[in-house]
């Protein structure tokens, strides 16, 4: 069966893509770049960071390009004033509550969209303490933008261990283990996938962290190496 193609216009560029293609992928075809944060090519798209929102003529709300399939005849605007305003507000909110010092991509976006995070000065910051409960990696959720990638690679997208999930509500929502147990007491197998997909510095290999802290390499090994299988907790 031949694939069905649909026609749409993205920022004035007409394009033809197979039916079912997301707006994000269609935009790539049209050489239009849509910024993403939670989207990652190898994890299931959730459309939760809302940075990739675009304006589709006739739609009531802005649409998340990474999950919404392009419709035949759609007219999409990826940089309309409404879109830019939504993105700018989002980035400002993230930049003012989350520590983005180790997220160059986010910093670049903050600059590109001429954000002014200072207008939220005095607002509450997300500052949970760094969790150092295992020899493999640290979790600094003050840098977490809650993109959900780590949860997904830990679950159905890669490892099927389900050690990570959400906890809390509202502003205090954060990635956590079951009953906030230390990772060593969870199903975690320390595969490292979550560290690999983290877009900020929230998840960091412990050795990398120690070297950053100026600890000598021999000491780093000493501090992170396990003393043999038998002694494992």
């Amino acid at each position, binding site marked *: 069966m031949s694939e069905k193609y649909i026609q749409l216009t993205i920022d004035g560029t007409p394009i033809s893509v197979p039916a079912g293609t997301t707006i994000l992928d269609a935009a790539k075809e049209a050489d239009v770049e849509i910024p993403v944060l939670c989207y990652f090519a190898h994890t299931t798209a*959730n*459309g*939760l*960071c*809302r*940075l990739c*929102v675009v304006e589709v003529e006739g739609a009531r*709300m*802005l649409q*998340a390009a990474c*999950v*919404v*399939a392009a419709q035949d005849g759609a007219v999409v605007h990826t940089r309309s004033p*409404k879109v830019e*305003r*939504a993105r*700018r*507000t*989002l980035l400002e*909110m*993230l930049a*003012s*509550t989350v520590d983005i010092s180790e997220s160059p991509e986010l910093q670049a976006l903050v600059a590109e969209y001429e954000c002014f995070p200072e*207008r*939220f000065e*005095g*607002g*509450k910051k997300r500052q949970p303490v760094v969790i150092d409960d295992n020899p493999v990696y640290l979790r600094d959720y003050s840098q977490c*933008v*809650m993109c*959900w990638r780590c949860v997904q690679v830990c679950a159905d997208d890669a490892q099927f261990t389900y050690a990570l*999930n*959400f906890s*809390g*509500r*509202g*502003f*205090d*929502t*954060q990635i956590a283990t079951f009953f906030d147990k230390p990772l060593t007491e969870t199903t975690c197998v320390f595969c490292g996938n979550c560290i690999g997909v983290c877009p900020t510095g929230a998840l960091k290999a412990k050795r990398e962290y120690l070297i950053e802290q100026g600890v000598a390499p021999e000491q780093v090994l000493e501090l992170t190496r396990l003393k043999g299988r038998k002694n494992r907790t």
Partner: protein
Amino acid sequence: MEANDKTVLICRGTGCESAKSPAIQTELMSGLQGSDVEVKFTGCHGMCQQGPIVIVEPQGTFYANVKLKDVEPIVGSLKNGGGPVEKLFYKDPATKEGLSTYHDIPFYSRQKRLVLQNCGRIDPEDIDDYLAEGGYEGLKKAIFDMTPDAVVQAVLDSGLRGRGGGGFPTGRKWKFTQDAPSDTKYVLCNADEGDPGAFMDRSVLEGDPHAVLEGMAIAGFAIGAQKGYIYCRAEYPLAIKRLQIAIEQARERGYLGKGIMDGDFDFDIDIFHGAGAFVCGEETALITSIEGNRGMPRSRPPYPAVKGLYDKPTLLNNVKTYANVRLIINNGADWFASIGTEKSKGTAVFALTGKIANSGLVEVPMGITLREIIFDIGGGMLDPNKNFKAVQTGGPSGGCLPESFLDTPVDYDSLIEAGSMMGSGGMVVMDEDTCMVDVARYFLDFTEKESCGKCVPCRLGTKQMLDILEDIVEGRGKPGDIELLEDLAVGIKAGSLCGLGQTAPNPVLTTLRYFRDEYEAHINHHACPAKQCKELITYHILDTCVGCGLCRRNCSTNAIIGEQKELHYIDQSLCHKCGVCFEVCPPKVFSVEIRTGEVKLVES
């Protein structure tokens, strides 16, 4: 029913139960034992403010605020054939005259009770009572006399719109789900009522659970589903208990289960207990929750009609939507479409709460004005000396409408146009003592806490808005805050993933639209016009004080100083602004004054 066959109905909705109505029922039953008077309990009768309510049918004699000690005279009047007990009559607040039957009470006479027709009349735990009122006739008619297409067409033609608040045409939803190809489909009932001050769905489930089951079964037949779930919050134990009883009775009688009414249609219903997250009222979050995951919404499309519970086509409607279905099937789409306005058909059920004389459950035809609901049915302000200020509909997604909108017709589109929304049916009335900035803060506090935290605009944006509102009510507001709130509101509405975030800024936007001067007073003059925001008010004793010492003795922080029979004064550094002095100062003396704004600045 013969003329002297009397039935005593005692309301046992959650409100009346908490006011000891089960004990009253027991007393009534033992008192009337051996007589030919039947005693039975019902679900919510609606006039919760006057509960517990006892009604004697067929006359419709209405006894309000019945206490245990009142049982004896009631039993006496029934047994001895004497006249009704006049001292228990409901008194008209205007004329102070006792009204003997509920037909005379404006609260009831102005209503149109269709969805609630059985609530307060039948025993919700007895299927025979429901059957006697024509129960399951609609299901019978649908299964044996109609095709699924005809049922969907009837719902389409009736013009019924979703009673959860969104107002999406129910028939279209049914059509989408019917058209979705699949062997397995689901019918879900959203009973995760979570708006502050709303109890319509609970009352329907407690008072007439079979109507909801029947509606769901008809829906199952129409769309081709065999299984239904009612997602009911665990905070509604009475509703869950009565639903469970109803489901079991319906199964026993062959109205649910395999081969309904000996036909070849199978349909069964189970209850799913929700853990009380407000966001689970959003359809995709509700579905995620039933699947056993954390209740978080998904991106739509795909809509549940195509890919819902366990990725199967799923129909999801509100409790009251399903309760309407059997009426449409029984009486025809044309009959239903003849009620209400052009675009909003049927009736609307509201839970009236707040500073209103008659709190309770009301059902009115669409198109009636807010004024009629609040002043004719609701009896006006709780304290007749206070002025009406605003009415809040639609819960945390809705808005506050001022007095100038009282003549707005109650229908989906007019309320949206006014900046509020129909919502599921919560209606909170506010008087002049309500600070509208504080109301906005309250709702944002609610949505901020109830946000699931999945998408960025809702998780961070509601917090930012709440922070700004808290600053304003606590006297730290600064110029530019209003504009920042408006800007944030636009960003959150446009960017959020689900309905919770997309509507969360509404309470702020409507209060800004209609009560902007209050925001400005808080920010620019450090004044709370309603004299409610503690950080912006001070209490003072005027020189008319007679020195009775009542305030001094009641003050919990010993902030009031003064000798007996001499002028007292308040040490502001000790005052916690609890307001007790204001409350206890004898009305004749009335020497405590609340000041706000510039006055305070001059004094300090």
